[in-house]
Structure formats: structure tokens, C-alpha cells
């Protein structure tokens, strides 16, 4: 049995492949792919770019760069750590503004640990969504599918948190649509600035970033609603609070489908 470095062994099949290749080549770097003389030679031809094509490319890029100036475009050019910080900062600001100027009437009587757990869960998911959504393209890509999963988990968590009051009996309050719509409206109002700032901070190139921004906005809005609304009945939280998430993400999905179909025509 040959001594195979751990980092090149990922499974029985891969181990077998590596061993068989190493046994044919003394050079480990060239062991895979290097065996074939054709692939040891430089790639036969780089596709050339004529001077005209190059000039067109340069002028096109310069034109795009000119459009980048002014407005809020400087926000997306900020260092990534600062962009993530700003995204989280705006979300925290929305929650803080609500807690200071629009607090629920029973805030002093509410069970603090329960509220902190709700805000903590929303905060962790918000942090992950903002970080994933603003992940720069010059860094290695994040595992495929995790971003979509994060959007789904964020929406599911809003529903799960609606059932959280079951742990502690709360006074029954009306849970009809009439009482839910004002919260849905306010939640949308709380979430919009977060969504807009995150879109301005996004550098583009990753369509999923818009959905992560929508999920982040919904999480921040639900955090603010937890401090704004004293109605904790399951029906109300589902209709008036969690629905904000489905409104944000659903609108985006609908927009993409409609625009996508229009573009295809």
C-alpha cells in the first residue's frame, strides 16, 4: 500500500484513481492529467482577440464604468466587510427605531427571555442572509444550494416563531385579517429600507442575492414587529408578521417570472 497524502483522498474510488495514477508518475502534481503527453504540453491555442475587438471591449468597459459614477453606486464599491456591516447596521437601526419610538404597549410586562430568543433567532438568520447575499465574486463560491436553503429556512423560521407563544400562555387576542393587515403594512414599511439598502450594496452577478435581501428584509421586519405589536396569537402572527416574508419573496418570484417571460418574448 502506497503512502497517499490525506488531502488527496476523498473516498475509495478517488483513492484508487490517485494510487493508480501516482504509480505511473513520480510527480504528484502532474499525477492526474499529467500522464497524457498531450495535456502536458501548453494548451494549443489561446483564442485571439483582434485589435478592433479589443478596442471595442475597452470602450464598452469604459462606458460601463462611466455609468458607475454618481448616485449610490459608491455603496457597492465599498469593501465587503463594510458592506456587510452596513447591511446589518441598517437592519439593527430599523429594529432600534421601532423599539424606541414605536414600542408595543406591554413591552415592560413582556417575558424578556422569550422576546430575546425570538430576536436572537431572527438576528442569526439575518446575519447569515446578509453575509451570504453580499458575498463578493472574487472570493471562492459558497457551497451550492446553501443560499436557496437559507431563504427557505428564513421563511420557515417565521412560521415556526409564530407558534412560539404556545410555550407560554398568552392572553387571547383577535387574529382576523382586519387586525393583521395593519401589521402586514407596517412590517412591509420596516422591511423596505433594509431591502433597498441591501440591493444598493449588492455588486450584481448573483441573482440569488435579491432573494437573500428579501429574506433579510423580512427577518428584520419581523424583529421590528416583535417589538411593535403586542398581539402574539398564532393566527395574527402568521397573517400579519410571517406573511411579510412571503410578501417580499413572493413578489420577487412573481417579478422574476413576469419579467423573465417578457424577456423571452
Amino acid at each position, binding site marked *: 500500500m502506497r503512502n497517499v497524502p490525506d488531502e488527496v483522498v476523498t473516498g475509495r474510488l478517488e483513492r484508487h484513481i490517485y494510487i493508480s495514477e501516482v504509480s505511473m508518475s513520480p510527480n504528484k502534481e502532474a499525477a492526474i492529467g499529467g500522464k497524457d503527453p498531450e495535456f502536458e504540453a501548453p494548451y494549443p491555442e489561446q483564442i485571439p482577440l483582434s485589435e478592433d475587438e*479589443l478596442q471595442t471591449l475597452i470602450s464598452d468597459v469604459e462606458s460601463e464604468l462611466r455609468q458607475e459614477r454618481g448616485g449610490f453606486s459608491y455603496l457597492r464599491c465599498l*469593501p465587503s466587510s463594510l458592506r456587510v456591516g452596513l447591511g446589518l447596521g441598517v437592519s439593527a437601526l430599523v429594529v432600534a427605531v421601532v423599539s424606541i419610538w414605536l414600542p408595543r404597549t406591554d413591552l415592560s410586562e413582556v417575558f424578556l427571555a422569550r422576546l430575546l430568543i425570538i430576536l436572537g433567532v431572527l438576528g442569526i438568520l439575518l446575519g447569515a442572509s446578509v453575509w451570504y447575499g453580499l458575498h463578493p465574486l*472574487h*472570493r471562492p463560491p459558497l457551497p451550492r444550494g446553501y443560499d436557496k436553503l437559507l431563504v427557505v429556512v428564513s421563511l420557515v423560521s417565521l412560521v415556526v416563531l409564530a407558534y412560539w407563544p404556545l410555550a407560554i400562555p398568552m392572553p387571547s387576542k383577535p387574529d382576523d385579517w382586519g387586525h393583521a393587515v395593519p401589521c402586514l403594512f407596517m412590517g412591509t414599511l420596516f422591511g423596505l429600507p433594509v431591502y433597498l439598502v441591501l440591493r444598493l450594496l449588492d455588486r450584481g452577478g448573483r441573482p440569488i442575492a435579491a432573494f437573500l435581501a428579501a429574506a433579510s428584509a423580512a427577518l428584520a421586519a419581523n424583529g421590528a414587529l416583535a417589538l411593535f405589536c403586542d398581539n402574539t396569537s398564532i393566527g395574527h402572527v402568521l397573517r400579519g408578521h410571517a406573511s411579510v416574508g412571503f410578501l417580499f419573496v413572493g413578489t420577487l418570484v412573481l417579478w422574476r417570472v413576469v419579467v423573465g417571460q417578457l424577456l423571452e418574448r
Partner: protein
Amino acid sequence: MVSDLTDEHLMIAHIAGDKKAFSELVRRYGPILSGMARRQVRLPELARDIVQQTFLQVHRARNDFRVGAQLKPWVLTIATNLIREHFRRTKRRPETSYEALNAEYPSVEPMVEPVDFAGIQSRALEVQRLNDALVKLPESQRLVIELHWIQGYPFAEVAQMVGASVSAVKVRAHRGYRKLRTLIDEERAG
């Protein structure tokens, strides 16, 4: 003269506001990125769009560039990610209309005995076969081969660029090269 500066110095000059520096970077990286994009997505218009997007992203990410870092892997990672996003968005393998790319190569008479690997660089037909074979590889294998063989990066750096472990990248490369060999042999056999 901006043409005397290294890529990294050009990037730093661009960050400092030198407009000519970025044009020089486009001049240097344009052919590299165009070749890479055309091999991956095949359609020239789409490839041009990806190249432009790459430069736009380089500009937007300029404040993330650290002094002392190498620019080329940085730029290639952006291009690689944009190509992956393209395939993710379209949910399909590259367009199989090879004529678009192959039309750009000079037409030559088919060679009777195309077995001389040393002379492959001068043979448009071999290049065409190679490009045709490359495009038939799965996206993950093709990207690894692009970065390892065509761009000449060691597996460790390729792994960083594609966000996978070194062992995973080696396995992808191994399978890709093996499949590439089979496809080329099949093409040659006619």
C-alpha cells in the same frame, strides 16, 4: 507609462483614480478572459457579456483588493464565478452550437495522420477537436481544466478559485482529462 507597470500596480493605480490604468488592464486581460469565456459558454456574444461583467466586477470590487495580492487569480475567480452563475441561471450545459466558435478558426484540410502532439499548436483542426471535446465535459471538470491546464495554475490555487478541496479538484481534473482523451480519440477515429 502604464504599460510598464505590473498588473498589481495597475490595479493600485486604478484604485487611486488613474483612468488609463484600467484600460491597460482590459487590454492585458481581455484576450485571456475572452478565450476562457468562449471556451466555456461557446457563444461569442455571451462570452463578450461575461468578459464585460468580469471587468465591471473587478472595478466594483477594487476596494477589496489588497496590496501584495496577485491580480490574475483574483480576476479569474471573478470570471469563474460569473460563468458558474451563468450555467446555474440557465440550468444547462453550454450551448452545443460549436460552429459559432469554430468558424473563427481558419479552415484547413483534414490531416491524414493527426498524431503528432508536438505540432498540435499549428493545427486548427486539432484545436477545433479539442474545443469540441472541452465543451462536452461537465461544467465543474471543464472549469478545473481551464484553470489548471489552459491558465496554468497548480491544483492548490485552482481549489481556492473554485471553492473546493484540493483532492476534489484533482479528482475532477483526473476525470476531465480522462474524458477529454476519450472524446478526442473518438473524434479522431471519425
